[in-house]
């Protein structure tokens, strides 16, 4: 059961990582990279590292996404 959940999470993470590179809409790419961080936080928690999971969720998913979104506000939303 647990191996099924973990494989699903890893596959989702890979899909999100690839779409963060491929997407032309930069806001979508930022949200996809946020999703990578969020799934990484869940996986860290499952590997019994809750300290790292907390840091990953707060910094990787929340703060770095905010920084990227502010950068997109300053520039253009779509890649050419």
């Amino acid at each position, binding site marked *: 059961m647990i191996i099924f959940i973990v494989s699903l999470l890893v596959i989702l993470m890979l899909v999100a990582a690839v779409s963060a590179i491929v997407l032309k809409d930069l806001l979508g790419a930022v949200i996809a990279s946020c999703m990578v961080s969020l799934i990484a936080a869940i996986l860290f928690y499952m590997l019994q590292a*809750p*300290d790292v*999971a*907390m*840091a990953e969720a*707060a*910094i990787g998913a*929340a*703060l770095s996404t*905010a*920084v990227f979104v*502010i*950068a997109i*506000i*300053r520039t253009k939303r779509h890649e050419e």
Partner: protein
Amino acid sequence: MRIIVSIFLLVVIVLGITLALIAIPFDGSIGQVGGHYIENGIKETGATNIVTSVVLEYRGFDTLGEVTILFIAAIGLGAVLATGTKNKNGSKNITPASLIVYTGCRFLFPLIILFGFYVFVHGHLSPGGGFQGGAVIASAFVLIYMARRGRKLSMVPAKVMESLGGLVFVLVGLIGLAIGGQFLYNFLPLGVPNTLLSAGIIPIIYIAIGFKVGSELTGVIDNLIEES
């Protein structure tokens, strides 16, 4: 040509990472140093969370370097973004956030702040600590900036807290140097493990780090928002 070179590089990197990772044992055996921390950590430092006892007790000086790196990064970002010309009147018309976003952010803000404080006050008992709690608090301030676009928070209290946090860390370390003969010597009584007032100087330092990291990351977000 570029594709062939990139595929070649990819293969080399994958091989390197695989060869590096294959040497690490993943069978659950613990080395000598780790075994010492797990067996004697609670007895020697009084902190139930072994990660905290390593971060602030066995490797406390490294943590001071880590805090310094974050401080220098925040200062550098502020210096790069300080262009000198601040358009106070806001030439661009800022569209206000919708009622749903505004109400949700106002509802969530105190809860997230409370959770951040809980994480770093209980850093020696439960998972988390100063860095994690500070990041959670900064993410609460991101919500405030989202809900009230164009609103300016006063950054003077944040700067004061940031400086006080760093000062408390170094002062506690120096008091330990004066009393015990080594930097960050745990000069307070260890107390009973699993209670809030235990582990000597560890809670004091983690609260200082929490305030420092929280105000620093909030300052980074504020600098970026001000420019946009």
